[in-house]
């Protein structure tokens, strides 16, 4: 290589301008917050929200719809990334609105750190979404995880929160180790870390199958841990339950979008050639998750814990969309299957945000309201918010006319199209079991008399947003076409 060829190339920064903006603003807010007095903390909140809106504008404006690489092929910008990032900003904006009242009532959390950590976590997810290199994936994931560990432990006098943070950290570190080990094996087998190059070498047959599959097992384990599917789900109930509800809301929503992107980048973009191997693994994980998630959720009395198990089962269901992309080496159904999974994740995030938001709405005066009994007789206290919560529950259960039905519908049609009839039957059987505990929440709200008759007090912005969230679940259930075709279109342009 001559000296002339080794010249330093300036990477195309425009492609990653949203990430750069986010990084600058997160640092600025972190430092700026030190100068803000407690009573003026609203300033930090406003700045954070403006940052997210700014990032959304940048992402939207710089979206070309073409797939382009920068930073020596470590970073990819494509339509799927743009769509997921826009949804990510929206989710985080909603989360911050929902959590604001909760945080203000807890002196240890009422600092600027919650906001700057949220921004760093968002940055981590953005990097994950746009990663086209194994190291980029890892960097994004770690940035997200470390921010989340800190957020869980934020209410530092709370014993359950501290315990949850410890568990999350130790198990999370283990999973990162697994993932990293798997990545190193894949590097050993193919000789490259760039995801498109991995795909190319696999396609050409230039790889060591034994080492590759060995690494794949570790990679899938690491991914399964981050997705929270059985048997790598142990942390989910404890972390969801122990973390302050505002943080649970964060963990239960936005990272699912990033995790979906990570699965797409690693398994579909990178390792599609060995899809038979990872699909077989994921089928087992998926069925186990639906089984254990739905059955264990029945026994819970704490709503956050119940939703944790429900999250496990939903991620299992979403994986069904991923495993049906390639049938016997035939990738005809890939777009259909992956866009169904994407639609599923997005609607899950929408519904999950509403559900945890409702727990935050009821939590007033520094108290939690995360027991199922706290929802007793909600219909008498507030018919409208009981109706919103009911829509969330029916949506999660997959009953029409709510969006959750079409999420299940599109994944199931992908499963049936792939010829896995038995898998579809297993999936609906566990959905039926799952229906029981969602119906129980409706029962508690509607059939039981209230124990607490005080009217619901919440800031107006939260009430409006909560109502909008409920209406979105209903309206997307009646008109799912737009979001469905958006998912399909973005994947069509990206795959």
């Amino acid at each position: 290589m001559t000296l002339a060829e080794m010249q330093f190339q300036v990477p195309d920064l425009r492609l990653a301008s949203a990430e750069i903006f986010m990084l600058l603003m997160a640092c600025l807010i972190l430092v700026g917050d030190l100068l803000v007095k407690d009573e003026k903390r609203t300033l930090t909140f406003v700045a954070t929200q403006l940052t997210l809106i700014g990032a959304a504008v940048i992402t939207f404006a710089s979206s070309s719809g073409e797939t382009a690489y920068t930073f020596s092929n470590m970073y990819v910008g494509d339509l799927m990334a743009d769509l997921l990032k826009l949804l990510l900003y929206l989710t985080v904006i909603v989360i911050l609105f929902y959590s604001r009242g909760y945080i203000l009532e807890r002196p240890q959390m009422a600092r600027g750190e919650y906001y700057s950590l949220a921004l760093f976590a968002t940055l981590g997810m953005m990097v994950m979404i746009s990663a086209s290199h194994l190291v980029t994936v890892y960097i994004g994931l770690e940035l997200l995880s470390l921010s989340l560990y800190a957020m869980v432990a934020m209410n530092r006098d709370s014993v359950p929160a501290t315990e949850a943070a410890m568990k999350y950290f130790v198990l999370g570190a283990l999973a990162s180790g697994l993932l990293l080990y798997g990545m190193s094996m894949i590097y050993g087998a193919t000789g490259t870390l760039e995801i498109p190059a991995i795909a190319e070498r696999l396609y050409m047959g230039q790889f060591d199958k034994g080492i590759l599959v060995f690494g794949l097992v570790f990679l899938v384990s690491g991914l399964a841990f981050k997705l929270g599917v059985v048997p790598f789900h142990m942390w989910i109930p404890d972390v969801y339950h122990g973390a302050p509800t505002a943080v649970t809301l964060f963990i239960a929503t936005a990272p699912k979008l990033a995790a979906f992107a990570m699965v797409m980048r690693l398994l579909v973009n990178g390792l599609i050639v060995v899809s038979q191997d990872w699909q077989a693994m994921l089928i087992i994980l998926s069925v186990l998750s639906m089984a254990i998630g739905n059955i264990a959720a029945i026994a819970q009395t704490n709503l956050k814990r119940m939703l944790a198990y429900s999250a496990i089962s939903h991620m299992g269901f979403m994986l069904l969309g991923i495993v049906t992309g390639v049938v016997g080496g035939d990738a005809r159904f890939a777009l259909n299957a992956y866009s169904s999974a994407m639609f599923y994740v997005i609607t899950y995030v929408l519904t999950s945000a509403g559900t945890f938001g409702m727990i935050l709405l009821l939590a007033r005066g520094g108290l939690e309201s995360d027991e199922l009994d706290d929802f007793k007789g909600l219909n008498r206290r507030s018919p409208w918010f009981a109706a919103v919560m009911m829509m969330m529950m029916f949506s999660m259960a997959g009953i029409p006319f709510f969006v959750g039905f079409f999420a299940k519908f599109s994944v199931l049609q992908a499963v049936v199209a792939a010829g896995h009839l038995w898998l579809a039957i297993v999936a609906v059987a566990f959905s039926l079991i799952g229906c029981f505990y969602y119906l129980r929440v409706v029962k508690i709200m509607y059939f039981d008399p209230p124990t607490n008759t005080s009217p619901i007090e919440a800031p107006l912005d939260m009430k409006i947003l909560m109502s909008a969230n409920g209406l979105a679940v209903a309206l997307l259930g009646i008109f799912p076409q737009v979001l469905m075709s958006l998912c399909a279109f973005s994947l069509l342009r990206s795959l």
Partner: protein
Amino acid sequence: MSGTPLLSLAIWVPILAGLVVLATGSDRNAPLARALSLIGAVAGLLVTIPLYTGFDLHTPAMQFVELKPWIPRFNVNYHLGVDGISMLFVILNSFITVTVILAGWQVIDSKVAQYNAGFLIMSGLLNGIFSALDGVLFYVFFEASLIPLYLIIGIWGGPNRVYAAFKFFLFTLFGSLLFLIALLYLFISSGGSFSILDWHRMPIGMTAQTWLFLAFLVAFAVKVPMWPVHTWLPDAHVEAPTGGSIVLAAIALKLGAYGFLRFSLPIAPDASHELAGLVIALSLIAIIYIGFVALVQEDMKKLVAYSSIAHMGFVTLGFFIFSPLGVEGALVQMISHGFVSGAMFFSIGVMYDRAHSRLIADYGGVVNTMPKFAAFFMLFAMANAGLPATSGFVGEFMVILAAVEHNFWVAFAAASTMIVGAAYTLWMYKRVVFGSVANHHVAELSDINGREFLVFVLFAIGALGMGLYPQPFTEVMHSSVDELLRHVALSKIQ
């Protein structure tokens, strides 16, 4: 009227009315909520009248068709239409909604707006089921209609309402989930169509037909309900408020039977012939065994619930004889049962509102204190027993006639129920109404008021009118039923 989307109006007028009623909020506005609900229900009924007056008797094709793309991603269409089989149910359902709103007028005094809105929304969803010609649209209405009834049973029901509501919801959902897989399978194997009419024409191999038939059977048998998956119905009926029981018996049970005609028979005709024996056997068990079960009931609502299962046995029996007389008889029986069972549950509700008991043993000599009521109750009890000149007779008679042509012993077994049916209904009537005044509760009963009188008259017009002059009901069915049977007779195996 050709340009008016009548079926859309039949679906969305009640649903929108329900949402408006919901908006009236707390019980302070209960009178307003009641008035609005009645207006909504009557408006919902009025928009369905042109379906009958404008109906073309001479074509088996779908009429009043509306076709708009709904979810192009999966080729799902907002495709509505009715033929001679489904049209009458849309009208019946809208009619029943009016009676339900009237039936709950004074009795329901807590959360009035939610109660009435539940029934109005339910009415729209049920109309949607009967007029959907797209598999997904059908399924969406079919499942969504579970939600209002679940809430109605759970909020306004009796002491064991939670158990009954869960059992109702999970049983029916169990059936419909397999149905969903069958729909998806048809979607894939038809090359991407959810149109029920396309599926009717599509050739399907015998193995696939058998599996489809069984999936449909599970879904619809639970809904009908057929023995042995009927156990949710008595619980649901006993716990539901009067209005809930009326809708459940008059309309919700018809969904399963309607499903057989719209899905099982035309989509899997060969499997239907092959497995007709199974369905006939299950129907006969329902007719005879459940008839005897009804005989020993001590709770009036349970008794009528079991008698409903027996009557629906006639319906499924009529379908699987594959003769025009049988299918039309079954359809007549379905509509008649809508009037009669609705009226029976309303009668029991009238007594329950006054004496707060449904046990036969708590009554006796009701005729002494409620003579007008006793007269109406007599009429509907007779209709339930299948007395000639009431609607109950026409359907059963037609089915039995068809059964004689098919197989004498099947007909014999089915006809025996005329005796059992008369026995349990009239025996109950005798114990409740006749005799001397049994206790001071009965002595204090007051006769029906004007509102209750009106509801009884509405039901009586239906039951008697259909019994004396069934022609207007049967003539609209002819061409559709003939076409259906012609279609079912053709093999789909290639």
